[in-house]
């Protein structure tokens, strides 16, 4: 996922172009000189400028000494890893968490909260390298605990589905 500044900069600039173009399409509002199109266009212009600066590496010279040394490595050090080069299979796992969230959207109303959450927890625990004998009880118990907190204490209407809870 790490891309060169040239790529991310161009991406930001492209986003800016799209924002500015999209913004320019909005109809004016009677009685407002500064209509709904102005802000997206200003933001778009800003993004184009920033994107070009990033892509061309102009930005670096703006950093004063306090920030100069704080570059990527440090941010990543913060988030606890130095990103060793992983095999592709390893990196594909990045798609699992968002995938499981989408699974939740798809399944929660169909099979209910507890089974959905159990599947999510089981799958992700295995992906994190948990043993089956850890993952199974976790998948069995944690959804019930979460259900108790959110449904009972917070009154969040979680769908009962196939396995309604007794409370």
């Amino acid at each position, binding site marked *: 996922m790490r891309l060169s500044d040239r790529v991310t900069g161009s991406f930001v600039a492209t986003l800016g172009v799209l924002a500015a173009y999209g913004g320019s399409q909005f109809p004016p509002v009677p009685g407002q000189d500064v209509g709904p199109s102005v802000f997206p266009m200003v933001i778009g212009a800003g*993004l184009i400028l920033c994107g070009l600066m990033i892509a061309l590496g102009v930005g670096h010279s703006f*950093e004063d000494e306090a920030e100069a040394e704080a570059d990527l490595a440090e941010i990543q050090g913060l988030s606890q*890893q130095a990103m060793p080069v992983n095999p592709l299979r390893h990196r594909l796992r990045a798609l699992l968490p968002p995938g499981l969230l989408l699974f939740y959207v798809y399944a929660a109303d169909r099979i209910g909260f507890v089974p959905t959450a159990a599947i999510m927890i089981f799958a*992700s625990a295995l992906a994190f390298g948990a043993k089956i004998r850890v993952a199974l009880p976790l998948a069995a118990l*944690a959804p019930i605990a979460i259900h108790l907190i959110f449904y009972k204490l917070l009154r969040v209407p*979680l769908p009962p589905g196939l396995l309604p809870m007794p409370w």
Partner: protein
Amino acid sequence: MNELLEAFRLVLAPDVLIAILLSSIYGLVIGSLPGLSATMATALLVPVTFYLSPIAAVASIIAASAMAIFSGDIPGCLLRIPGTPASAAYTDEAYAMTRNGQAEVALGAGLWFSALGGIAGTISLVVMAPVLAELALNFSTYEYFWLAFLGLMCATLVARSSPVKAIASMLIGLLVACIGMENPGGVPRFTFGITELLGGIEPIPALVGVFAVSEVIRAIVSPEPPPLPSRKFGSILAGQLALTIKYWRQMTRGNIVGIIIGVLPGAGADMAAWVSYAMSKRFSKERKKFGTGHPEGLVEAGASNNASLASGWVPALLFGIPGDTITAIAIGVLYMKGLNPGPTLFTERASSMYALYIIFILANIIMIPLGIMMIRAASYILRAPRATIMPVILVCCAVGAFATGNNLFAVILVAAFGVIGYAMENNGFPVAAMVLGIVMGTMVEQSFVTSLIKSDGSLLPFFERPVSAVLATMTISALLWPAFIWLWRRFRPGQQEQMS
């Protein structure tokens, strides 16, 4: 004096004390769950307050909201998943301290300076309510525009990455804030025909996505980090006195900034935390340490966000103007209980007013023991293996986002922002700056457009009005300063050569 005694009698009634205790625990639990905000904690209390006496009803709201704002720091510090937008400003800092084995210092600072900030805010409420209210009333959209603009500029200060990338992140956040029809024109923008996007993107799902989900993604692709040295948490309050003495200036500044921002309707704890953290960094003698696990910014921001919470009650109590969503709910409860907001509340119902003050102080005092217990309980999270914690967090993200509007679309947003946040972070774009853009975007646009309508298109009032002029000067100098420094460094050597 009699009124004060009467106030104490009101507060010390058993039902009030029990209400304070229970709602404190409740607030602590909710605030610590990612995706559940202090606002939600408060809103869920409303049906309960039907059954309580007036003082107990208000007390439960005060206690729950104060606790929830503090406990939003806990998951931020331990897992880098801020519980509330107010904690997002300094999450990286607190998490860095945890990685340095100083989790208890970071959490202790959050707790201690939150409590002190809350008390400072209360004192401002007692002593200066009318003055502050006058200030709040004189804030028109012109002033709000500069304030919001100034808030946005904090993005470049808070991040430890390239300022250009920080600005780009912030602009992306502003673009996200454009989505929906919550704009001055009431025109749906960038909704792509999706009904759910009409109302715009709420900060909470975005926050949960870019912080919590991206953290889960990051964890899943990287090998398990070396476990933190397993050890018992040291005393949570031990170092705090030393910090208080060392950073009393920062603390006071945080309190003052928090009080001022809190009083302004529409600008609440979120903004107070951001501005204070940025100020702390700007004026610090040890700027390089910021972001590496340095408590200075935590002190100032923690002192600030809880102070703003208390002073947010000033416009609410005096004019019934909500300072933020929490006080908006509280105003409803005040009405329901016959404590109608207004100047008469301070004169005719003085004992009730004093009782509210006492409750504020009391809530901030019991925050300390309860908070310590909460921190100790939460510290087990650090010892649990990652393979058990992360899956549970993922489910909490889904449920927490769903709970914001009982709408599954929020879960889709969380997934999307998780990917966006992960990609941004990996490439050096600070996600906190994007969250700031999302939070402030509407305010910048709204205040700018409405100001121009009011001034018939003239920009003059942005600079003419006294408070506005001061804020404008601050903003413009803050904006030009780095460029000036850069130019100065760049051209100065050349000039010297010419001279010699």
